[in-house]
Structures are given as C-alpha cells and as structure tokens.
C-alpha cells in the first residue's frame, strides 16, 4: 500500500512544540502546493489542530524515515530534534491511525466530535488544491465515514464531559426537548455565559437574565435575545421559569427566602435549579418545596456526572477499537483490488478498439436493420470477456497478493511492446509489487 503518515500530537510532544508545528489554513495551502510538486509524492493532505499536526502522503515509493522527517520539518519549520518523537506509520498502520483520529479515539478528550469536522476540512482543502490522489481520497473519505459510523454504533461521543454541557444533559433528562422552555439566567460571568450558550444551542429561546451589574446583564440578554430582570431575581421570575441557571460570585444564596419558596410551591410544573456557583447561589430548601417536581443540582453533582460519562466513553472505546479494525480491513481490501484498475482500464481500451475495428470492417456484410443488434451483441461479448478477466485479476490481487497475472495481461494485450501507456501500467504494477 502506498500510504504514509508522520505527525506529532499531545502524547508525543509538549504544548510548546505543538504550537510551533500548528499550521494556519494559508500555511497548509502553501505546504500542499509545495509538497505536491515533489517527484515522489502522488498525494498529500495535512491535518493541523490544536493537539496534532499530521502529514499524510501517498508516495510513488515509500520514504525512508529520515526523508519523511525532513519533509515534516520543511512544512512545519521545526528542527530535527523536535521531530524525533514524531510517529511514522505506513500502510495499514497509517490507515488505522487515521480511522482512530476520525473517531476521536486518539483525541485528548475521548470521543470529541470536533476532530471529524477538522478532518473533513483537511480533506476538502487538500482535494480542492488538487493535492490528493485516489488512494488519499479513499483513505480520508473512508476515515470520515468510519468516524461517523463508530460514533453512531458506540457510545464514545455520548454524555457530557464538561460542567456546562452536563447541565444541559441534566436538563434534557428532565424535560426532553428544551425548545420552548423558559430559562432564568442568574449571573453574567463566564460560567453563566457558557451554560447559556450550550442551552441556546439546543433550542432554548425564552430568556430572563438577572445580574448584580445591570449593564452586563443587558449584554448577555442581547446575545440571548432575552430581557433583563432585577437582581436578585424576584419570586415571580423563578415561578415563570422551567430552568434556573445560577452562577454568580455572591457569598450568600441569591435565590431563596419565603416568597420564592411560596412561588415554587405554587408552581405545578417541573422546575430544574442548576447551581453552578461556589459558594452556592440557591437555597437547598427549595428542592424540598413545591409540588415534588423540583430538582436542584450543584457543581459537585455535575462533576460526578462528567466522571460517569467519561467512564462510559472509555468502556465504549474498547468496542470502537474493534469496529475500527473492520474499516481498516475494508480499506486494505479496496486497495489491493484497486491495484489492478489500470490493467483493467488498459484491457477495456484494447478490447473496445478491437471491437470497433471489426465492426467497421464487417458492417457491410450485414443488413442495415441488423447493425444495432450487431453493436449490442459485440458489446455484450466484450463485456463478458472483460468481466471474466477483471474478476480473476482482482481475485489474484486481493486473495493471493499476486500481480503477475495483471502484468501478463498487460503484455498480452499490448499492441506494441514499447507503447508508452503499456510501459506506464507495467511500471505501476512493478511499484505495487515491491510494496
């Protein structure tokens, strides 16, 4: 197989090296252009994220490790000492790594989903620059497909792994869809904004914002499309909401007191109170009030939820690794079958030319009304012969790793032994045979 990879990631290199290795989109375009002109490279793609910079190449001949390191240094500007810890993988190993990256199995945060988008961008960029060949196209597309498949078929990306997203997960466990739910956001700091962004992302549209500094509350309310209410929030605001998210730096609870307690008791719908502040913002007594449908969660509870979700992801990762192997094996099978594709194309061209010649030569022996039948018959005959040979060539390549039959077919079908096209196909087969 002609697939190679060299890269650095969070496991092999410190942040300082990764920062220097990271490439901007413009630098990637430049590097793709630069490398693709190289004599030994048929395809190039570069994946650069905050945690990894990887160079995928499809060479005519496999590189020596030092050659590949030099290529990597050339595009990233790193010194040779920096890339001594880089991983160099080829063929099935490279494909396995690519699939694991796509599925988030190689990510710092197991199962994270951003990497799939980043890989798609890397593919699109390389493809649009004309830097990929059919092997890289297939490998990258296969990996993207595998990334989706593994996420769909296992739980590696399920469950929240940050406090803000855990808060959303908890809200979804209670309400189901959050569309149409009313949220009272208390606080306008980073934690409150983060939680609000997550909630907005899942469809919450009805907001009230309360903050000690009204101007900050207004900024957040404008961002969310909500309205500002007084601080601390009135009992009526708590009664109005389905979900209260509080993250202020107040030293005393800001949501509580007899009026709020009475308001919660008046409510006849579920109420979720998310207290993301330390010290706590919400009087724990509220959880015991009301109709029995009041749920109060604090930061500690979310830490537990995040830990449980990570544990689930790790368990699911073992299954995902197993499924990843299937994708690697299928790519490998495709590759081995595909090695004889130029031979089959050559065969098709020769047979088609012979057929056309013979039709032209013998056409007048047939009545004009039979010409269409003659055309159909000759095409069907050629298709049968071609299909039979192609099947056997593919089988020999796939099952016995034997390309001698393909070489023989090319030679047998050659009209002139020195034909440039024939020589090209034979050269390709020779290269494949040596890999």
């Amino acid at each position, binding site marked *: 197989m002609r697939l190679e990879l060299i890269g650095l990631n969070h496991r092999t290199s410190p942040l300082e090296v990764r920062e220097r290795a990271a490439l901007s989109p413009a630098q990637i375009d430049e590097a793709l252009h630069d490398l693709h002109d190289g004599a030994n490279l048929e395809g190039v793609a570069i994946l650069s994220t905050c945690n990894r910079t990887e160079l995928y190449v499809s060479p005519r001949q496999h590189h020596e490790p030092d050659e590949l390191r030099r290529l990597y240094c050339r595009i990233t500007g790193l010194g040779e000492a920096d890339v001594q810890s880089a991983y160099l993988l080829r063929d099935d190993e490279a494909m396995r790594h690519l699939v694991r990256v796509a599925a988030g199995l190689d990510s710092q945060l197991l199962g994270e989903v951003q990497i799939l988008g980043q890989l798609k961008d890397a593919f699109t960029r390389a493809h649009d620059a004309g830097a990929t060949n059919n092997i890289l196209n297939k490998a990258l597309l296969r990996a993207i497909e595998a990334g989706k498949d593994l996420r769909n078929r296992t739980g590696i990306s399920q469950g929240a792994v940050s406090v803000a997203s855990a808060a959303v997960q908890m809200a979804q466990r209670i309400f189901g869809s959050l569309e149409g739910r009313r949220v009272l956001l208390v606080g306008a700091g980073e934690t409150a904004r983060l939680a609000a962004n997550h909630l907005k992302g899942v469809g919450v549209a009805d907001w009230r914002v309360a903050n000690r500094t009204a101007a900050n509350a207004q900024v957040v309310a404008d961002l969310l499309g909500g309205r500002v209410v007084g601080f601390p929030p009135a009992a009526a605001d708590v009664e109005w909401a389905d979900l209260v998210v509080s993250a202020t730096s107040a030293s005393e609870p800001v949501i509580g007191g007899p009026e709020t307690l009475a308001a919660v008791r008046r409510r006849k719908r*579920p109420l979720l109170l998310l207290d993301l502040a330390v010290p706590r913002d919400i009087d724990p007594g509220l959880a015991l009030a009301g*109709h029995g449908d009041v749920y109060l969660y604090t930061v500690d509870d979310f830490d537990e939820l995040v830990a449980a*979700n990570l544990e689930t992801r790790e368990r699911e990762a073992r299954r995902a690794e197993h499924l990843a192997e299937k994708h690697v094996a299928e790519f490998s099978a495709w590759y081995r079958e595909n090695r004889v594709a130029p031979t089959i194309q050559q065969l098709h061209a020769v047979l088609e030319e012979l057929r056309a010649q013979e039709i032209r030569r013998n056409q007048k022996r047939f009545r004009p009304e039979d010409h269409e039948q003659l055309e159909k018959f000759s095409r069907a005959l050629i298709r049968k012969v071609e299909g039979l040979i192609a099947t056997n060539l593919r089988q020999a390549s796939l099952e016995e790793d034997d390309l001698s039959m393909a070489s023989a077919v090319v030679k047998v079908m050659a009209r002139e032994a020195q034909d440039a096209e024939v020589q090209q196909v034979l050269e390709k087969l020779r290269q494949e045979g040596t890999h």
Partner: protein
Amino acid sequence: MDQLLYRVLPQTLLLLFGALLGIWGILVRRADLGLEKAAVRIGWIGAACLLAWLVAVTALQRQLPMLSPGQLAFFLGSLVWLGQCYAQRHVDQRLFAVLPLVGVAGLMAFGLAMGLRPGEVPTKSLLSAGAAVHVTMSLAGVALLLGCGVYASGHVILDWHIRRRRFDAWFQRLPSLGDLDRLRRLTLVTGWALVTASLLSALVWTRVRPSAEPTVISHLHPMVLLAVILAVLVVADRQRWLSAHRLAVGCVVMSGLVLALLTVSVVEIFAGRFA
C-alpha cells in the same frame, strides 16, 4: 389454513418478537444507532404482521381471536405491541421498548402454550358482534393502560436515579422524564376513553341480550370501579392536583389493578360460568 394461522404464523411471530426483544436487550446495554434503526424497522414489520394475522384469523373464524384464553392472550399481545407503536410515534427516544416486548413475548408464548385453536366455543355470547366490540375495546384499553404502567414505571425509576445522582445505564438510556410523562398521559387518557367506551358498549350489549348471570355482574362492578379510578387519575392529571412523580406512582398501581382485573375476568369467562 388452520395450521398456518393457529400454529405456523403465531410461532413465527413469537420468534420475530423474541429476536426483537434480544436486539433491544443488547441495545439497553450498549448504544448502536444502526442496530436501533433496524430494530425500529423490525418492530413496524412485526406490527404489520400482527395486523395481518388478526384480519386473517377474524375472517377464518368469523370472530376476533377471543374464543379461548390462548387467543385472548395472543390478541392482547398484539394490541400491546400496536399500542406501543402508536405511543412511540410521539417520542424520539425509542429505547423504552424492552418492557412492552417482554409483555408481548410473554403473552404470545402463553397463548401458544394454551393453544390458539378455538376448539369447543365456551359460549354463544362470545360469538356476537356486541362481544367483539366490547372485548376489543376493553383489551385495547387494557393494553394501553398496561403501557401507561410501563411508562409510569420508567418515570419512577428515572426520577429515583435523578434524585439520588445515580448516573448509570438507566439514567443514560431511559427517555426523559418529560417524554415519559407525555407517553403516560397519552396512554392513560386513551386507555380511559377505551375502557369507558367498552363499559358503555357492555351496558348496551347486556340490554340487548339480558343476562342475570352473576359473572356478568361480578365483571361489571370492577370495570365500573376501574373506569372511576381512571377518571380520577385523568382529572388529577389535567388539574395538576398531584406532581408528575405521584401521578406516575398512581399509574403503576392502576396498571397492577388492571392486570388483576383482566386475569379475574378471563378466568371467570373461561371457567364456564358465562352464559
């Protein structure tokens, strides 16, 4: 044809639903979207096959499959699954199918074990159109109310997990409290409507064919009681007299009562005391 409708097709259906139960059993323990989609598709195919079986058997014996305890069990199993398909169209999370499937497979296995052939029909009353209307509505109501009990159980379990911070498979896999509440309400109201209609149809039927049999009376009283309990639950739900959690507990108890009533009624009917 007898062999096909009373043995081969029911056995095939039991196998199909057994396999479906196995798939959902796997899905409870691990996520697999592809498998889940396949299971949903098989579930719909199962529902279509059950409907076809109901139509064919009804055509063959000129009455719905209610002429023996085995037939009743199979009929109820079919209705439970059709009710499940109906209720689950209203919720995205489809993993809550295991309990209904246990019920469907159990009822089918019981039906097959008891024998599906009508044999000697126990009573002429069961051959009338009035009986068909009453029994069908009654069983459909029972199926939905049992489903209501299942959703309410889910609500109780998830609520317990949420309150006690147990973030295990139950917490991850059950539908949300909101969805379970919606399904519970839907099945409760529909079940109540069907049971009430069934009761009214029974009153009309007994007027047309008067019977002083004690079984009819003993069957009628608990049915009236059930309809009253259901009506109270429906009103409590609409007026929000109780919390969602307490309503769920009430529905679990109610579905237990429904199951007990159903068992008593079937035993009474087929013990031969029904005129």
